[in-house]
Structure formats: structure tokens, C-alpha cells
């Protein structure tokens, strides 16, 4: 591997990201999967970094999942997106940041399509007007939330309480970064680092002291693929892809996996349990799995937030081994206590995968 070669490519895929004043839209599914992630994003950006992030309860799904599942036509998804833009315009913002990779890809795709086919944009404006009497300006800038954490990575590093270094060995932690497919594969120029060697997550890991692993199936999809997982008959295909990725990264002994997409962390986390149950195989040390984190969770961890406050107890794969390596203190008895210290009940332990 020639690191300078990658740097050369990364240099070609950099984007100017506005520093402040963002209209933030959430993901449909992340709040169910890892609810701490989006909360922590706003906490870090607003609370810690004192940035202006506006959020409205009126925004809806971007329609991306339905669009990619072929259940709604393109005009429909465009009108939904136009409404989101209208909300942004009404709130007086020009920078639009999406929490979800599918949404991000969806927005970029729609904006690029309108650029190529202005008559389509005009038609959508008409449809939006007919539907809800709204008008919109196209955002000046569309970013993915991970772009912002990437942008703030050095500020976060400066305030970090922990570095991604193995406390016992002093070695940097080995991290696998996994980018959501729709982040860069459709429009590499709208990403940080391009589609082949994306830098958005690598940049965070490097800034916070870890080492990025480049393994053969790095570019491969996590296996979610809307049409695969959502149809039960196709789930075997979904997990087969995840399995392929784990088999490929196994020899590198990663300490954790970092992701920036709603589906990826969820499936890479949960499928480890299914693989363990069906194949009897685990990928972490001593029968544990490899912890899978979102970039918000990782940022929160290095900033010193309590692991249970950021929702890490909702991961299937136990994060404790990683916390131990990082030297983060935690109270095992508090793991299954909710925000108000109420017992949220212990889940049943799996048969094969070790989960403390």
C-alpha cells in the first residue's frame, strides 16, 4: 500500500464545507437502531462546538427507501424532497445536512437530475405547489452529517479525553471503516476522498489516533441492500454479503468498525450474532464480536461521554472489550439503566457470541 498514492487521490476529492448554520434532517431508521447517535451529533455540534443546527419536527422521510425498493415513482420522491427543501427555505437556512446516507445520496441524485433536466425541476415545483402550496430554494450546500464530524475532527481531537490507542500495548487501535454505498459510489465528486478510497471516516480515525485497515472487501456493501433484507426470502443473500466482509477483514484483527450509514452498523452488528448462531463463528477476541460504532458514537466516546449515555448498550456486539482497550471506565451494572436510571431489562444472552 502506498499511502502517498491515496493522499493524492484524496486531494482530488475535497469539498468546501460551510462551517455553520445547518438545517439538520434525521434518518427514518437510525433512531430505532442506535438512538444515541443522532442525539449525540446535535449534542456535540450544538452543545460542545456551539454551532447553529436547526431541526424541525415537520420533516418526513426523504422517500429513499421506497424509491430504491421501486415502490414509489421518481416524481413522488422528488416532491417529498422538494418539501424538505421548502422547510429549510422557510426556516431561513441554505445548508442542508442529512443524517442518513440514503437521504444524502437521494438529495444529491435529485439535485443532479434537476441540473440535467431543468424541466423536471419545474414540474416538481408545480407538483409541490399543488400538493401543499409550498415553494423552495435549492440548498446551497448538501452535506452528510459525517462530513461535518470530519470537518470538526481536529476540534474534537483537541477536546478528546481518550485517543484511539490500546491502553495495554500503546499501539494505535486497528479500525475498519465502512462507508455507506450511497455516500460516494453514485457521485464520487460529492464525497470526501472519492468512491474508491473514501476519506471521511479514515480522516476521523487518523485524527483521533487510530489506524485504518485496508482489507480486500473494504468496498463491499454491508449486505443490507433494501431489496435484499426487506424480502425475507432474500435475507440469506444479505447475510452472505456481510459474511464475505467479515471473512475478508478477519485476518487483520480489527478492534472496531466505524460506519456512517444507518443500515451498515445495524446489520454488521446484528448479523455477527446470526453468523455466530448459524456458523458458530465469531470475529472478535475471545468469542466476542467486533464492535460496530457510528461516527457520532465514536466521537462521543473519545470526548469522554458515558458509554451508556450514548446508547452503546443497544449494540448486539458487546462494546466492553473496546472500552477496556480505550481505557474508558464504565459501570457494568449501569449498562441496562435508562436515561432516568430506570431498569430497561437485560436481554437474553446469545448462545455462541459472547456478550459479557
Amino acid at each position, binding site marked *: 500500500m502506498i499511502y502517498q498514492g491515496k493522499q493524492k487521490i484524496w486531494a482530488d476529492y475535497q469539498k468546501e464545507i460551510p462551517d455553520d448554520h445547518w438545517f439538520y434532517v434525521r434518518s427514518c431508521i437510525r433512531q430505532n437502531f442506535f438512538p444515541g447517535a443522532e442525539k449525540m451529533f446535535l449534542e456535540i455540534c450544538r452543545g460542545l462546538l456551539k454551532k447553529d443546527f436547526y431541526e424541525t419536527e415537520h420533516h418526513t422521510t426523504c422517500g429513499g427507501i421506497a424509491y430504491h425498493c421501486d415502490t414509489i415513482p421518481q416524481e413522488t420522491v422528488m416532491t417529498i424532497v422538494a418539501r424538505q427543501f421548502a422547510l429549510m427555505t422557510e426556516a431561513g437556512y441554505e445548508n442542508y445536512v442529512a443524517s442518513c446516507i440514503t437521504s444524502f445520496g437521494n438529495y444529491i441524485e435529485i439535485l443532479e437530475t434537476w441540473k440535467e433536466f431543468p424541466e423536471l425541476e419545474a414540474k416538481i415545483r408545480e407538483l409541490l405547489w399543488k400538493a401543499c402550496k409550498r415553494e423552495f430554494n435549492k440548498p446551497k450546500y448538501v452535506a452528510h452529517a459525517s462530513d461535518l464530524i470530519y470537518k470538526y475532527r481536529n476540534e474534537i481531537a483537541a477536546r478528546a479525553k481518550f485517543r484511539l490507542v490500546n491502553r495495554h500495548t500503546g499501539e494505535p487501535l486497528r479500525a475498519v471503516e465502512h462507508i455507506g454505498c450511497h455516500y460516494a459510489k453514485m457521485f464520487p465528486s460529492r464525497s470526501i476522498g472519492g468512491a474508491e478510497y473514501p476519506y471521511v471516516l479514515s480522516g476521523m480515525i487518523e485524527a483521533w489516533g487510530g489506524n485504518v485497515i485496508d482489507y480486500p472487501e473494504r468496498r463491499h456493501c454491508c449486505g443490507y441492500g433494501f431489496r435484499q433484507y426487506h424480502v425475507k*426470502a432474500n435475507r440469506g443473500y444479505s447475510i452472505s454479503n456481510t459474511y464475505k466482509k467479515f471473512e475478508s477483514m478477519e485476518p487483520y484483527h480489527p478492534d472496531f468498525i466505524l460506519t456512517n450509514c444507518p443500515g451498515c452498523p445495524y446489520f454488521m452488528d446484528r448479523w455477527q450474532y446470526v453468523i455466530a448462531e448459524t456458523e458458530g463463528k465469531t470475529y472478535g477476541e475471545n468469542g466476542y464480536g467486533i464492535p460496530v460504532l457510528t461516527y457520532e458514537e465514536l466521537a462521543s466516546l473519545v470526548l469522554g461521554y458515558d458509554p451508556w449515555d450514548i446508547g452503546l448498550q443497544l449494540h448486539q456486539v458487546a462494546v466492553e472489550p473496546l472500552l477496556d482497550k480505550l481505557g474508558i471506565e464504565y459501570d457494568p451494572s449501569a449498562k441496562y439503566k435508562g436515561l432516568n436510571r430506570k431498569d430497561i431489562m437485560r436481554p437474553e444472552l446469545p448462545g455462541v457470541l459472547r456478550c459479557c
Partner: protein
Amino acid sequence: MDFGFKISPSSAINLDNVDTVKFEQLHDMEPDVYKCMACGSCTSTCPANRFSGMSMRKVILALQRGKEKDVVSMMRNCMLCGKCTMVCPRGINTRHLILSICRIYREDGK
């Protein structure tokens, strides 16, 4: 535990895992096996194609890809009539190739 689905084997051909010993043996027996340029003339002329999907092109390809079981089933209805030999633009002695395959490879793929 049964989830109602399971990991399916990869359909990809991994050339790293292809055992070339038998193919080399075949090459020693009939050197022409290297000459195929996959034009498919043999397949289109083959009278057994309609019965067992016999295709000399696919046979040679499958052997190079380690798919020996496919070969045996394709060759099931080969009649050794020699049309493929006649039409091959590279002059491959397909009949000898077929007989050599029957000698070297096994039905159970071992």
C-alpha cells in the same frame, strides 16, 4: 438456530482455489485444450447440446475454472460424432479432448 435463511455459498469463481493438476494432465494428453478461443462454433453445431446442454466451449472453460461437475453433466449426451472437430476454427481435436476428459476427470469430482 434456524432463522429461516442462511449464508449461501458464493457463486464467484475463485481462481486461487482451482486445482490445476488435472487440467495440466489433460493438457499433456491433448495439448489442443489450450487453443480454444471461445468462439462457440462447437456448441452451436453440437447435436447433444439440445439434450444435455453439451458445449465444448463451456467444458474447456469450466475445467479451467474448476467446475468439473458441470462438465460431467454437460458431457452426458456427447455422441462423439466429431462435428465440433470439423467446425473448430482453431483445429482443436475435440474428440480426443472429450475422451481424455472422460479418462482424467471423475463423476464425483474427485
